[in-house]
């Protein structure tokens, strides 16, 4: 009896049995479905890059790359159009730099507080409130910068106009604090507790332990937090469009109005532009430039991360 049942079982598990064939087919179908889901985001990214590049190429038939990179003015919609990307890049970097000067210290200290000081109960209360900052629509931040932060700054800089990159940068910084702090906190909390104990056992205070052991150990994870913050700041549109004045301006003075790449794109796309005109193409060129900048930061971030990970 044992023999006959084992024979039936072996028949059932034979490779060509219909049940087995159906199961193999089902597995293949599921695998294909999962592949398509995973591929969709890659395909969308590739499509965006493709469109940006193909729409930008005709632009460079009109404007040389040399002019694009060296011209000091960006006025593609004027009678006497100039196509120098420098003012937009300058505005973008300035806004991002100011934002990071706010977000990195504030985000890091917040993360250290949440990870190392606060009791678990209070942390569970504070974290959602902090993350709520990320849920506020950026247009609200834009008007917060224009109508609240700028008047405050005018107390310190009385000559400053209503539109300026400083106020926009500060508010972007506040906006990205949760991005920086949330990932930094995860990185700090994943530092092994035996390292903390080793530091305390040496007679270190909590502050010394956090700044001499926990943060250096968490640095590779914190780099990702900073890179996310940088990408977020580089791509921020509404705040600068509303509060910084949308005037391409090659200046390092943050009290001046300026435009970022994204602010220019939103400004131009609001008007009527004939398809295929050089103004229309300039949007794509600006977009491509931003993509290249963001991508470079991500690559640098990945490289730093890897370098620090090797050391751990």
């Amino acid at each position: 009896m044992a023999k006959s049942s084992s024979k039936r079982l072996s028949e059932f598990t034979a490779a060509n049995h219909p049940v087995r064939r159906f199961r193999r087919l089902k597995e293949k179908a599921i695998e294909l479905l999962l592949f398509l889901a995973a591929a969709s985001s890659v395909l969308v990214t590739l499509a965006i890059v493709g469109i940006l590049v193909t729409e930008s190429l005709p632009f460079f038939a009109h404007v040389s790359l040399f002019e694009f990179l060296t011209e000091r003015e960006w006025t593609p919609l004027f009678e006497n159009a100039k196509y120098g990307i420098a003012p937009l890049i300058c505005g973008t970097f300035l806004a991002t730099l100011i934002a990071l000067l706010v977000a990195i210290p504030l985000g890091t200290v917040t993360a250290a507080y949440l990870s190392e000081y606060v009791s678990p109960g209070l942390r569970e209360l504070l974290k959602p409130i902090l993350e709520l900052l990320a849920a506020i629509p950026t247009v609200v931040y834009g008007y917060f910068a224009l109508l609240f932060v700028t008047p405050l700054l005018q107390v310190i800089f009385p000559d400053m106009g209503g539109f300026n990159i400083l106020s926009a940068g500060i508010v972007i910084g506040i906006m990205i604090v949760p991005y920086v702090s949330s990932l930094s906190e995860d990185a700090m909390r994943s530092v092994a507790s035996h390292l903390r104990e080793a530091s305390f056992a040496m007679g270190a205070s909590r502050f010394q332990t956090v700044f001499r052991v926990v943060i250096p150990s968490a640095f590779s994870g914190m780099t990702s937090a900073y890179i996310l913050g940088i990408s977020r700041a580089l791509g921020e549109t509404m705040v600068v469009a509303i509060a910084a004045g949308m005037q391409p301006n090659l200046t390092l003075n943050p009290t001046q109005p300026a435009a970022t790449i994204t602010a220019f794109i939103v400004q131009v796309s609001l008007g009527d532009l004939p398809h295929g005109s050089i103004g229309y193409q300039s949007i794509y060129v600006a977009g491509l430039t931003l993509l290249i900048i963001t991508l470079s930061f991500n690559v640098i971030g990945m490289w730093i991360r890897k370098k620090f990970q090797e050391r751990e």
Partner: protein
Amino acid sequence: MGAVTTPSIRADVKNLNFFYGPKQVLKNISMPIYENRMTALIGPSGCGKTTLLRCFNRMHDLYATTNYQGQIILHPNMQNILSSEIDPMEVRMRIGMVFQKPNPFPKSIFENVAYGLRVRGVKKKSFIEERVVKSLQQAGLWSEAKDRLHSHATDMSGGQQQRLCIARALATEPEILLLDEPTSALDPISTAHIEELITELKKDITILMVTHNLHQAARTADYTAYMYLGELIEFGLTDKIFTTPSDTRTENYITGRFG
């Protein structure tokens, strides 16, 4: 063993009770820690030996809902280091500790040893250098480390890392050195190396060591304390504990009848 005359006392545990929340983990423990001797704490898992060790540098204060009763009197200034008026940081500055798993900081070899001096606010470069060299020599790591002081500590082998942790603890000249199963994560050769080192160190420093390894206690310790279920069952000279224990529970554990 040469411990015929009783050495002077370095610390005195008096009626120590310890609680994790409502759970009592140490029950009325009293024992002396002798100066420049090595005392081993042995006993089956969960007997409270590591908990007792971590009372000596107030590590339990890092976690909520822990509670001490009783005293650990540090000689010669007769201070109760468990007193709530004493800052645990002060205690940890006086009593060093080496952990079960080697846990060097992700810094250079030099900075690992210098850490205790730096957190104490020592700035003088020559003093720090001198102390780092001396501690590495004491920990038997100097010949291996002297050409790579600025390379990363985590590039070393496990045994070297543990000796680095010992050097790190020695650099601040602790009054007592606590060792929490310092060889349990190491291979037999590294273990032998560390045991040799401990035997050398105990000439000048008071050591309290938790170990799972009975042979290790027998080989290295002058005094041994056997603990079971949070109680101190027997304390005495290692020779006596291992040859003629007075409590049958100690005997059963030593002879391998349980545990």
